[in-house]
């Protein structure tokens, strides 16, 4: 029996159907909802129903049983070469592979990495760095603004190189907006370095995982010992030197969901040198060691409770300063997404899952040897992820292959209700070989769909409680004409 291409949602107040072809959410009666859930289980036939509501929706093009998507191909496929030739917007330089820390979950540690490089003392030399900056210069004609990011290892171990790159690129890019970002563990910030960062307006991202007892569990010096106190001391000094700069520091928080969420979160509420507004939290990445992150029960329910409080605070029903900044930041992104949910429009005959960006265009990663990768998060040892080098330029064919990662699971993707909200990219299909793995990619789909489901359900909730984004969820009466 044909199934409608939909996903159903139920809230305490009402029930909805998400029409995947139309990329729209419609409220439906409980009778229609029951009928549609029977259809998805195969116990009713949508094509022979006598329910007026369903028949009307079908007449208006909703509730089709087939995906309109015939082929999976990214619309930018013919233009990948142009984007890589003319519109690179960010280049991330791996200035060193060395690090003064040995974080326990570090993707570069010898014990756990399966498909990633190991710690090494290799650093980028000036010749390679200069060549990289020149490459960015020649390949960003259509970008009004470019960013150079410094990455490691711990990039501050290569401070002289960073200083040389900043001085050279400032002059080279005169007349074009350029800014700099550095992702650091925050332990090596001397006064000299702080002055340099402040004077050159270099955006600083510091990795901090939570309060001392959590942070120090994983983030330890190579010689042993936690790093929390050193980071806090340095942040305090930076605040003394330039409070305005300190305000803008971004915190990258790697959360281990085996911990209690309240403990992780404590730092965002109780630590005075921690700016609540600039947190970028992510679950520890275990993809390259072939393990799944384990979620403790305490993490899950406390995280959900904080999200609930964050919703209340958005609605002005709970003081924001008593809610986890991590949850508030997540809810803010959700509201942002809610405003733009319909931008991508209905599905088209040739379409593509939502996840991938043009490999190398948004954040081209150049490693110490001058090899290119789509971004800093992918494996440097994986042949499929190598998209060229400073010597050979871009491998455009490879970039096109990675961009069209959806094509390797074409049938699954074209028939997947979450295609518009999919977050999968080539990294999720990388098993360290010459080609991408469909099987490995599909192993992530359940959690991607669950995320999409949770996101859409939260959007419905926001709509039900009558916030300003109400027009994002279509009113049935509007289409009844």
């Amino acid at each position, binding site marked *: 029996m044909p199934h409608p291409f939909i996903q159903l949602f139920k809230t305490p107040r009402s029930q909805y159907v998400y029409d995947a072809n139309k990329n729209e959410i419609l409220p439906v009666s409980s009778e229609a909802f029951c009928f549609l859930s029977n259809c998805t289980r195969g116990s009713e036939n949508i094509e022979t129903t006598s329910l007026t509501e369903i028949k009307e929706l079908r007449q208006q093009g909703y509730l089709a049983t087939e995906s309109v998507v015939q082929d999976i191909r990214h*619309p*930018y496929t*013919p*233009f990948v070469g*142009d*984007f890589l030739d*003319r*519109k690179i*917007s960010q280049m991330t330089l791996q200035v060193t592979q060395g690090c003064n820390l040995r974080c326990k979950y570090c993707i570069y540690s010898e014990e756990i990495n399966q498909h990633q490089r190991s710690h090494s003392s290799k650093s980028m030399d000036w010749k390679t760095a200069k060549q990289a900056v020149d490459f960015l*210069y*020649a*390949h*960003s*004609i*259509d*970008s*009004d603004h470019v960013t150079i990011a410094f990455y490691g290892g711990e990039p501050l171990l290569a401070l002289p190189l960073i200083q040389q790159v900043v001085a050279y690129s*400032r*002059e*080279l*890019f*005169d*007349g*074009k*907006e*350029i800014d700099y970002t550095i992702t650091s563990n925050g332990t090596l910030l001397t006064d000299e370095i702080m002055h340099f960062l402040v004077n050159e307006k270099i955006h600083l991202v510091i990795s901090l995982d939570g309060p001392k007892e959590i942070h120090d569990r994983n983030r330890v010096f190579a010689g042993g010992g936690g790093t929390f106190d050193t980071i806090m001391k340095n942040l305090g000094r930076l605040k003394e030197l330039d409070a305005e700069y300190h305000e803008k520091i971004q915190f990258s928080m790697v959360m281990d969901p085996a911990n209690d969420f309240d403990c992780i979160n404590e730092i965002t509420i109780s630590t005075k040198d921690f700016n609540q507004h600039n947190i970028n939290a992510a679950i520890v990445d275990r993809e390259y060691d072939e393990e799944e992150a384990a979620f403790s029960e305490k993490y899950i329910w406390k995280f959900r409770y904080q999200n609930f409080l964050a919703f209340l605070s958005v609605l002005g029903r709970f003081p924001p300063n008593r809610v986890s900044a991590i949850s508030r930041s997540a809810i803010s992104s959700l509201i942002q997404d809610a*405003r*733009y949910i319909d*931008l991508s429009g209905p599905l088209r005959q040739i379409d593509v899952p939502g996840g991938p*960006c*043009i490999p190398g265009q*948004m954040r081209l990663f150049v490693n110490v040897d001058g090899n290119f990768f789509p971004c800093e998060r992918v494996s440097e040892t994986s042949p499929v992820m190598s998209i060229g080098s400073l010597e050979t330029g871009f491998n455009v064919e490879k970039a096109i292959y990675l961009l069209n990662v959806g094509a390797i699971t074409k049938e699954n993707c074209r028939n997947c209700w979450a295609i518009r909200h999919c977050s999968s990219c080539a990294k999720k299909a990388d098993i360290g070989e010459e080609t991408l793995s469909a099987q490995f990619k599909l192993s992530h789909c359940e959690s991607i769909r669950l995320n999409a489901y949770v996101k859409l359900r939260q959007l419905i909730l926001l709509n039900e409680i009558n916030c300003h984004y109400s027009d994002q969820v279509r009113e049935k009466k509007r289409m009844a004409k």
Partner: protein
Amino acid sequence: MKIEVAVFPFHERMLPFIRHFNQAQDVYHICQAIAWSGSGLNGRDAAFICCHPNIGIPVVSPTETKSFIGWQILFVDCDELERSSAAFNSFTFFEQLLSKGKKIIAVAKNNNLCSNGEWTPLCQKYSEQIQFFSAADDVKGKPTSQSSGYSLLSVPVLLVGGLISQEDCLEVILALRESFMCQGKVVSCLTGSNMGLLMGMHTYTHIFDKKATLSEEDKALVLNQMAQDIVQVERPSLFIVEAPDPMMKYNNAAPNGFGLQTYLLCQALKPNLLVCSVPPDVAVAEGFLSLISKDFTARYGVPIMALHVNNVMVAAFDIIRLHKVTCVHTNIPVADMLRKQQSKNCAFPIFNVVSEGADGLAQLILQREALLW
């Protein structure tokens, strides 16, 4: 023997100007484009800025000594100079070249440059070597006593506007102007380019200037009076005007100006014909441009007559990231290939003025114009 000229600071909107300027008059010859070093264009042909076929004019950086060599006059776009955040000291550069006996011809939207800021000492010291042209001083553009309020122009008005960006609009206008002039026709042009003043064209940059104190209604009235005066003096058979902003809202994340300035301009000049510059991929959905044309008829009072297919692709990922429409240039053969694929489904005649010139489009305009009058 023509006088050799360089332009500074070279930017995308200057390309059509330098492409057509050398043809349009017998006195000057642009031989060099000087761009900010950060543009990434140094050593390239100027047309590379739009990924167009080469035009034989090299780009150099003002920091290179060769930027001084081979020309006698520098055309300076003061508004672009003002917009730039470059650390390079342009006025030291000007001083150096003036001290070597070279001349500067500067264009700007406003007319108070000499009594203003860093130009003042240069103007005092080298008054003989600096000449200004400003939109506000454009005599034909000033409302005169003969102007009598708002009235429709007595000549057909062709609007050239871009759907998503102003890409190639100036190119279309300049190429059409050249084509009509070859046929002995007089055309008047009103655009958003101050450089056009050097080719006898007119500009509305001072009217749409963010600092201008005119009310929106007055802007429309001044534009109308300005156009009337131009028509009275030049007696053209066609009045071509450039849409000052992209013609429609892109989406909620990047409204792209909503076409507000174009609406205002259309209230002032009531265009009869519209050539719309579109990216090569927009006609993919059949009927899409017909719907747009209906919308333009309601909004601007003019349907699409013909399309110019440009070579820009919208960078969709920048829309949410930056809340603005940014583009990448693709090469002309790819744009042409897409154009050919799409012309079967398209309800409008499609041209590419960059690769095939404007004669075909000019011919079509004459036919439609004849029907109008």
